[in-house]
């Protein structure tokens, strides 16, 4: 799980006919990388806010939340007690769900609260990026999915579940 500090944990990829090389947006625990400037340049036509690090106060706390989870995980693994494992799983699931909900809320605001003076106004159109998966937004295909860091956290959760299932002799290997 320490890996999640060194790789992005979420990605948004965008394709349009005039972007055959795709546009990339990588979300890390504490920063954004990728074609943010290009994406901002395009999105201002439809009145979307500029994506900036300041937009995400989450970046300040997420590294610490993950540190806490890792610490608890070490304790749980060391302690070997079933209730520790359960607690760890619950904490992981809670953190993951909170992250997804928070991301969805950001996406909703980003896609719905458009500048009324925007140059291009397509009636009835909103530009909420997909939470996970693919969505067509005007001439773009947007794909949102976990990146390496996200998979690491997901597999950690699965690992705990498997460990518990084995412990309860449901899984026998």
């Amino acid at each position, binding site marked *: 799980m320490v890996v999640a500090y060194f790789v992005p944990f979420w990605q948004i990829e965008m394709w349009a*006919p005039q972007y055959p090389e795709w546009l990339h947006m990588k979300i890390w625990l504490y920063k954004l990388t990728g074609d943010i400037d290009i994406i901002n340049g395009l999105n201002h036509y439809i009145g979307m806010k500029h994506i900036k690090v300041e937009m995400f106060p989450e970046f300040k706390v997420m590294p610490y939340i993950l540190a806490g989870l890792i610490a608890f995980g070490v304790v749980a693994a060391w302690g070997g007690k079933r209730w520790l494992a359960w607690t760890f799983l619950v904490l992981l699931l809670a953190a993951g769900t909170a992250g997804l909900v928070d991301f969805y809320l950001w996406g909703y605001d980003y896609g719905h609260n458009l500048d009324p003076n925007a140059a291009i106004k397509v009636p009835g159109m909103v530009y909420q990026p997909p939470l996970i998966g693919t969505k067509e937004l*005007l001439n773009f*295909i947007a794909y949102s999915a976990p990146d390496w860091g996200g998979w690491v956290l997901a597999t950690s959760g699965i690992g705990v579940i498997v460990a518990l299932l084995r412990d309860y002799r449901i899984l026998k290997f």
Partner: protein
Amino acid sequence: MNIHSIVRTGLLFTAAAAVIGGCKPKAPGSVDTGDAASKVYVAPGKHDEFYNIVSGGFNGQMSVVGLPSGRVFKILPVFSVHPENGYGFSEESKPMLNTSHGFVPWDDLHHIALSVTNGEHDGRWAFGNANNTPRVARVDLTTFETTEILEIPNSAGNHSSPFITANSEYIVASSRFSVPIGDDKSRDVPINTYKENFKGTVSFVRADKEGDMHIAFQLVTPGVNFDLARAGKNKSHGWFFFSTYNTEQAHTLLEVNASQKDKDFIMAVNWKKAEEYIKAGKGRVVKAKYAHNVLDHNSGIAKSTMKDEVIQLDIKEFPEIAYMIPCPKSPHGTDIDPSGEYIIGSGKLAAIIPVFSFTKMMKAIESKDYEGTYDGIPVLKYESVLKGEVTKPGLGPLHTEFDGRGYAYTSMFVSSEVVKWDIEKLEVVDRAPTYYSVGHLMVPGGPTTKPHGKYLVAYNKITKDRYLPTGPELAHSAQLYDISGDKIKLLLDFPTIGEPHYAEALPASLIKDKQVKFYPLDKNTHPYATKSPDDTKIERKGKEVHVYMTSIRSHFGPDNIEGIKLGDEVYFHVTNLEQDWDVPHGFAIKGANTAETLIMPGATQTLKWVPDRVGVFPFYCTDFCSALHQEMQGYIRVSPAGSSVPLTYSLGK
């Protein structure tokens, strides 16, 4: 846990992750082009089917391209100097680029109009517009040379130009940028008084007589931006339609402020009515200084004269000249179908394509079916003029062309595609991607009453990875499509010269056999022409030294000149004595602050040279002319000012 189970679980997780993670959508693949190669291959010794006359945009020139091969035959200088052949550098051609602002060496040529008779291509001329220092130009299609340029006064951003009426009576020149017009006091106003003081102008330039382009009348309009225009044809002949944007009348941050209104206008102008008013003496004569430059065919010399007045009609004061048709949303193209009945607006920020009916428009005007006025001009009711809308065509419609078989083709800039739709049924029947972000389309004969059809070219604004990259600045891309069948088929992808905004194409057979091969020497009326090697001489007129020189394979006559002094201005008048096909000669001299000049067989071209130091200077033929081209050279001796070296010239001594 043993190593076995760790590995097993590890593999399980990786597999699961791969399955979920590998769901990134595939980008739409390339279109299968089938046997396109054979359709665009023009075998050695054979010719293309069409001449494609293409605007060069920011290079200020036209290029001549063959279809279907996409090969470039010529870069034809119009508004920009062309050192390659001396256009804008030779004494004969410099006046062609003269304006009321002096000599202007560059402009921005956006659109092409080919001359028509009875609504069909006649192969006489191509016209181009200058967007920066407003002008229109005429190009002769038998010599592919610019023969006439007329400056447009009281205008700025001559973008909505040149568009031509069905018998080439008029080409229009309309302002993209409204500016304050009138005397000095009226023109010096604060920029934020745009709404009160800035005006647009639409000039109707008489174009059907070579050498006689003049502004028949200039309409003064409210301060909007004119984008493109089309003349009516058949039943709508006598009317002209102009797309407008920035009816919000913004003067700053137009990106936002000119995109606010839901609808701008297509301005319909009854130019026959305007002609009546002018004939009745109702026009107002206004002082204005603007240049008219004409190339004389027999001498090859361009002459620039200044005009000093223009006739204006303010459309507010003269009813029945102009009507506004509401059109969503910042329309770019306004295009008329071959029958002349349907007027199609392409609103670049709109989600639909409105199709207006000329018949309905005339009815609405007759019954005064207005929804208000715009700065005194009646605004017709949208629904009363509308035939119908094409829904969900794509994103960012820009421009529509026609194939003459009942279909229209509209370019979609944002969704980077061409959309084919049935004009009567208003239904989309096919679409094809363009690479990338198409601006204008071109169907040979598209704007005429009888389109030649067969091919469609998309001129794009973004190139990226289509060809081998050449640093950050790339040639604009174009695609050639076969539209002869039901479905659009991509045939060829080729780079273009400059930025083609618009182009027209006509069958090669219309002009191929009329091409001038050389100029008859006995028709040459140039005052400094030398028609025989025996007539070469040098004349001194004070500080001016005129060299009457001949060129023929493979020598200049004279080729040894002495007696030039520092402070002299030397004029080399070089006549090409050849009377054969494709034997031009070139002329260049060391250290000249001009360029070379290419002299066509039978013609005379002059380069002015002011030597800056004492010595012997070589000159030579720059255009490969013969086996002994390398030997085609000469020397000229420059002595100090006041020296007593006599003026002598010789060949072979």
